């Protein structure tokens, strides 16, 4: 026996945003004529304290059990109005938002009459829908207060320490037999020229000593299941495997150095090497008299369109180290743009210029030519674009400045955790501007070169940011997901798999259900904790097996049926 539906309709003027085009009093009068509507009123700003308390008062006075607010956009105000209903003791899912602004007044300016008619239609549809809404509860899941950090380089270690210091448990999984990542191969860091060990060792020591951190060396991630707050991961270590239960995951697997085989004599001449090769094997900086560096090798070209971001600075660093060790050395950098961005690096660039490092601009279409005899490069010829002349530089060392490239395992990890890769092969964050360390799937974060080449300060920043994001659900102790989620009817599911592949959040998976002949069959199943209620699965399902609560077929048909 269902209770009688009692709807309250609140139509907003939104200042003059709606009221200036739509005849709000007219819409209010119209609303009063609709079935189940017990109360209708207009407000100047329904979201103001006045409007909100009016709604609460009417719920109380008139025992309203459904509320329709016809105003602006749920994007900004849905939470506010839902909370307001809750405050008055009404289940927040018995509320329907009708958009009279973006969907009406703002797109039909100058057409008052038609806009008002449309507003009435929208309100009528809203009332029809709200009558079919059922009370629902948010789903709260417990969050395990521990994090899995994939990668033990500067990013992974920084994130681990930050979380451990806040009291969370951290499992660091590193595939090499030692911690440190790429920084192990870097000799000195810019712009201080201090040894990388000075930075890395204290970090490693702190991580190893921290009682909240467990380090797994020589370990690789094999499998991940679950969702935010409840991930179960399997790692392979010491020949065996181990299960880890964590609440959040930070992907900090870094990137790898690029080996530009065949370019500019690399592999053929023993004195042609990358900047990183130079750092690992160089020994003393004062051994060299004529150093020529070629920037943008393997970057900003047909093969790889991106810029390595900080490799220009690496070149400056090594140029300065050579010059400072041997002021008589001639160091020339061949470049296509000097990316010394910001406060610090422009001065660093000037420092190199002041020390006598020379810069020659070359064009992508006319790359330098490295010439030599036998196994040694001797000269570099380049068209000095700005001078308009080819010049010849003697060289006893040729350094190729290369970008970092995506790590080999990225594709496998991407599939394992359902986290996307960008076109460049690095992990793709949820939103480039405002969510740079998050993935669309909740609870998994990214930091450091796994996302895009990043130097130490940036990596540390991103690691701390990822730690902050990971700390949020863990601090709260639970993750609350909205009740408007999708659900698969196993009886109708034909197991075509469309929904599984189309879900951007990895919330749809396979489940086994008993089949008539006592065998088992696979059907799709939505994990309500991960589902964001976007509806892609429901609209892609050819069998009509998926129901999105809050937007059921029944509700939508009811809205359509109200049309004249």
């Amino acid at each position: 026996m269902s209770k009688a539906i009692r709807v309250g309709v609140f139509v907003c003027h939104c200042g003059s945003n709606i009221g200036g085009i739509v005849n709000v009093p007219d819409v209010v009068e119209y609303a009063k004529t609709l079935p189940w509507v017990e109360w209708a009123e207009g407000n100047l700003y329904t979201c103001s304290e006045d409007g909100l308390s009016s709604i609460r008062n009417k719920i109380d006075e008139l025992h309203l059990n459904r509320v329709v607010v016809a105003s602006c956009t749920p994007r900004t105000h849905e939470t506010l109005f839902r909370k307001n209903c809750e405050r008055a003791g009404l289940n927040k899912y018995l509320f329907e938002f009708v958009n009279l602004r973006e969907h009406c007044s703002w797109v039909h300016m100058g057409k008052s009459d038609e806009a008002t008619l449309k507003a009435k239609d929208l309100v009528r549809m809203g009332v029809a829908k709200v009558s079919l809404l059922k009370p629902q509860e948010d789903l709260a899941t417990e969050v395990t207060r521990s994090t899995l950090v994939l990668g033990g380089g500067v990013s992974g270690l920084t994130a681990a320490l930050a979380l451990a210091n806040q009291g969370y448990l951290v499992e660091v999984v590193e595939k090499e037999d030692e911690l440190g990542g790429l920084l192990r191969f870097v000799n000195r860091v810019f712009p201080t020229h201090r040894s990388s060990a000075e930075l890395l060792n204290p970090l490693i020591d702190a991580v190893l000593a921290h009682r909240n951190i467990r380090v797994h060396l020589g370990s690789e991630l094999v499998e991940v299941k679950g969702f935010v707050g409840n991930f179960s991961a399997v790692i392979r270590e010491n020949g065996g495997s181990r299960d880890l239960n964590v609440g959040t995951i930070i992907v900090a697997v870094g990137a790898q150095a690029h080996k530009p085989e065949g370019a500019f004599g690399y592999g053929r001449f023993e004195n042609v090497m990358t900047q990183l090769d130079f750092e690992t094997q160089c020994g003393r900086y004062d051994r060299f008299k004529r150093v020529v560096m070629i920037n943008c090798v393997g970057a900003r070209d047909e093969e790889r369109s991106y810029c390595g971001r900080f490799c220009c600075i690496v070149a400056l660093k090594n140029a300065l180290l050579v010059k400072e060790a041997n002021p008589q050395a001639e160091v020339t950098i061949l470049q296509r743009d000097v990316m010394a961005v910001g406060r610090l690096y422009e001065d660093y660039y000037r420092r190199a210029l002041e020390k006598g490092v020379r810069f020659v601009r070359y064009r992508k279409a006319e790359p330098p030519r490295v010439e030599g005899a036998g196994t040694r490069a001797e000269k570099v010829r380049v068209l000095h674009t700005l001078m308009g002349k080819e010049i010849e530089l003697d060289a006893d060392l040729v350094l190729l400045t290369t970008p970092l490239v995506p790590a080999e395992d990225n594709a496998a990890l991407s599939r394992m955790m359902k986290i996307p890769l960008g076109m460049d092969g690095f992990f793709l964050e949820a939103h480039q501007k405002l969510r740079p360390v998050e993935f669309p799937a909740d609870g998994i974060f990214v930091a450091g070169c796994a996302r895009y080449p990043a130097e130490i300060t940036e990596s540390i920043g991103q690691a701390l940011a990822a730690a902050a994001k990971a700390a949020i659900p863990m601090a709260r102790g639970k993750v609350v997901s909205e009740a408007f989620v999708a659900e698969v009817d196993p009886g109708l599911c034909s197991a075509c798999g469309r929904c599984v592949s189309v879900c951007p959040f990895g919330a749809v998976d396979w489940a086994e259900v008993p089949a008539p002949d006592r065998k088992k069959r696979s059907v799709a199943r939505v994990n309500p904790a991960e589902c964001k209620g976007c509806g892609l699965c429901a609209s892609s399902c050819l069998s009509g097996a998926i129901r999105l609560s809050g937007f059921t077929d029944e509700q939508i048909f009811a809205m359509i049926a109200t049309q004249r």
Partner: protein
Amino acid sequence: METALERNCAESPDLRSEIRTLMDANHLNLCLECGKCSAVCPMVNFYGEYVHTRCTRSVVERLCFDPGGISDEALWYCWACKECTFFCPSGVDFQNFMTAFRELMVAHGHRDHAHFCSVCGAYMMPKKQRDYLETTMNLNGNSELLWECPNCKKGKYLNVLYKLAGGNGKSSHR
């Protein structure tokens, strides 16, 4: 192995290293080749055409990378007016370099393109500058403006003042 400067510049070692010193002292190495100097240089107005090899940026580049490629003459077009130096965003003091460089060249006997004071023989300006000024200024007998250096002019002036003061003093300005 010699640097390009050393190998191409067929001058005495002293001149080579002195040029290098001048370049460092005037921060020519800070040049980022942005072209602002060439854009503000008034040479194009005086000579009626823009010839890139005469301009600041070209001179600086070739001093760094192709000194042997600089024809002697190219370095005697600049008027040392200081516009380029004023606007240079990197802090290259080209005007000071140019002035000092010319005095250096003259000291080493390279006098063909220079114009000297007819009284004391001091370097005044490039010949080209004098030629342009002569033709545009219509001097009509006031040629000491261009043929006497400021020092000598001051000397003359002082002598006049001494005369007026009724003495026998003579200026020591040479």
